[in-house]
């Protein structure tokens, strides 16, 4: 068991390092962002100097020398004078030690460029919407899935399966656009987007109500588009375990259908369900880039998109690192939990 866990830790750390390194390379577009950055610095310095009094009187070489001097010091200050490959390892070390540093452009509402502050400011909003939504659709899906499994082939089962097949391919943001069109523009039931009204209500109670009002449609969309496929997965998992011999034995013993469901059917199908729930919970913390964009929800997904669209590499890396860490830790915890939940795996581990 110890040996197995130690091996998993080594593998997972290796995976973490590798994926963060790849993220760093891609987030810097293989060094291309450096070129964009230094070109911009050079442009800024030149235009700044050109505006200073007496610049026009200076001789041409003097001008070039001044620009070059300021440029080198600015590049040095930003650490851009070292070769790209060398810097990627510095970035990697910073990322692994969660030293997320400062953003290039994006600032938090409080005005700081500290990436950890920016992320912590956005995280609660994403958790509020997507984690709530994920928990809700898991529960709804689980309940419906169990009902489907109880009477496979019934009208309820077939209708829900149809619904699941259709919705599983259509992403939430797509439903989002259609629902905004329907509920916000045509029926005028909910706001078009955003998280609070402009200007936001001042007293805390109304503020909370206002957020709930803005949250209603994205939350509904999120649940609506995912619970079907989730119910279908639950149905299949429970149906698989309800075909096992021990369930037939339990039935033969005359146990009540409820007890059979709880003790013999649900329990063996629990591990995969737990895995899916926890992985989608982690994924929900990352937010949904396009869904948040469509609904104008100012969470982490939107931050990701903002950072990408103005090529703020440190923020992109920061978000990826936090996500990778969360994912790897969750996978490790799942490994542990699996060991306790399923005796077959416990034996394998030993």
């Amino acid at each position, binding site marked *: 068991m110890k040996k197995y866990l130690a091996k998993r830790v080594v*593998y*997972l750390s*290796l*995976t*973490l390092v*590798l*994926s963060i390194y*790849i*993220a760093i390379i*891609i*987030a810097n*577009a293989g060094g*291309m*962002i450096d070129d964009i950055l230094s070109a911009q610095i050079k442009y800024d310095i030149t235009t700044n100097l050109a505006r200073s009094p007496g610049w026009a009187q200076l001789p041409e070489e003097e001008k070039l020398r001044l620009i070059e001097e300021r440029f080198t010091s600015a590049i040095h200050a930003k650490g851009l004078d070292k070769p790209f490959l060398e810097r990627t390892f510095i970035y990697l070390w910073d990322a692994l030690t969660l030293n997320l540093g400062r953003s290039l452009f994006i600032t938090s509402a409080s005005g700081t460029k500290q990436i950890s502050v920016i992320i912590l400011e956005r995280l609660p909003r994403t958790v509020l919407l997507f984690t709530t939504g994920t928990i809700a659709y898991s529960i709804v899906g689980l309940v419906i899935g169990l009902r489907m499994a109880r009477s*496979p*082939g019934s009208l309820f089962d077939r209708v829900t*399966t149809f619904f699941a*097949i*259709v919705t*599983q*391919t*259509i*992403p939430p*943001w*797509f439903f989002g*656009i*259609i629902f*905004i*069109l329907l509920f*916000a*523009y*045509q029926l005028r039931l909910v706001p078009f987007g955003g998280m609070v009204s402009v200007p936001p209500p001042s007293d805390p109670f109304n503020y909370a109500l206002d957020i709930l009002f803005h949250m209603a449609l994205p939350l509904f969309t999120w649940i609506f588009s995912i619970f079907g496929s989730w119910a279908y997965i639950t149905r*299949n998992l429970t*149906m*698989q375990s309800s*075909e096992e011999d021990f369930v037939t034995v339990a039935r033969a013993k005359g146990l009540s259908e409820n007890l059979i469901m709880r003790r013999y059917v649900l329990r063996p199908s629990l591990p995969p369900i737990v895995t899916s729930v926890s992985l989608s919970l982690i994924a929900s913390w*990352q937010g949904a*880039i*396009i869904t948040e*964009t*469509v609904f104008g929800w100012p969470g982490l997904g939107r931050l*990701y*998109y903002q950072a*990408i*669209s103005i*090529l703020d590499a440190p923020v*992109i890396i920061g*978000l*990826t690192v936090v*996500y*990778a860490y969360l*994912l*790897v830790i969750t996978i490790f915890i799942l490994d542990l939990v699996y060991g306790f939940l399923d005796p077959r795996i416990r034996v394998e581990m030993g």
Partner: protein
Amino acid sequence: MSLSREIQDLSQALLTSRSGKTGLIILAIVLGISLFAAIYVPFDVVAKWNEPTFWQKNPRTVAPEWGTFFINKNLPPTLDVAPDDFNKNEYFVTASSLKYVTLEALITYNYDDFPSELAAIVYATYAEQRPLVTITLERPDGLKAVLYRDILRSPVNYLYLSSDRDIRDNVKSFLLTLGVDTTRTIYPELSLFAVKNDDMVDTRKASVLKGFYRIRIDVIAAAEADTADAEFLLYGQVYGLAGTDSNRRDLFIGLVWGAPVALAFGLSAAIVTSIIQSLLGAISAWYGGLVDEVIQRVTETYMILPFLPFIIMISIVFRVDIWFLVVIIVALSLFGGVTKTARSVTFQIMNEQYIEAAESYGASRRRILFLYIMPRLLPYIVANIVLAVPAYVFLEAALSVLGLGDPMVPTWGKMISDAYVGGAAVHGFWWWILLPAVLIMVTASAFAFIGYALDKVVNPRLRER
């Protein structure tokens, strides 16, 4: 031999299950649309998709013609009075050395609503002096309005009668002679076609004056060889089978061409990634040892990478077209979930006797992999391809919504994003959003239905009892 059996199994599953049949029928329709697009809608129309002048004879953001069915109102289509439809009269007066050209045409207007815009195009050839043009509209009630009287500015003069300031002023003075209040904004296409009363400037209250309208264009040219022709356009409130967008483009062409683009994009991305991933999964299981170790670690790494942010990132930095996007998708999906499934399935296959038999008569490792193992993986690969296609179609749509799609090719996602940006939701231009949205959803569902049918072959435990 084994390969043909696998294919037989799959096709049988598709043809016997209801979901498989439904999916195949929808897919056949989408394929039919693609073929129709390729054969009947010439590609140079698509090439002109982003060229505004090509579409200027279409009305702006109007509903499809069948939209009138729901409101029980006879909305006008676009009426194009072509140069040949005009009655031409020309004569030259030697004394003043002036040439007079009179063009006259009759328009029957029996619709329940007003045109959306008016335009006149004057085609003229002249030697030195530019001709003087007068455009007059005579209404069924006998009233005459002079719309335009000026020297032509160029040989082909496109006169937007609805938005031109001078023409609005002309219509205003016409209304003044009728004693109508002209302090409001004047809409020529409304007032000129409204029953004469005080409401003829009110967009909500004005009623249509039905009957025959006579359009008369008088040209006075300075030389005998000068010529003049004209075209008169009454833009409608409905157009074609799918309406138009804010750039006057015929959405039907975009919708029809969206089908082959979506299929080609989704299928190529899905086929390449599924095959590569399952091949790597099979290699991982079959060769084992260090190869297995490396492939598994890399797969886990890949599965942690945030796929969508990276694609968005690369699209922004490199401004990709739709085919380069496929390359990026493939590069970021070399390893993935399918690698894991293929690996575990390969482990099952490896224990079967025919593999042992092949090994014992000395078949090479590679031969066994490609000829005995890969064919057995085929059902999984096919099921994966089918299930992955809609994901890629929606991925393209998502990038379009973020403004990162291919700017040249008309895709369904691009149309939805155009509609969204163009305020279709605010103004209630339902056809602009709903038609591409429905097409995308129906196509995605077709693949989902087929995938569902195939899934039962791949996972026999899912079969209903």
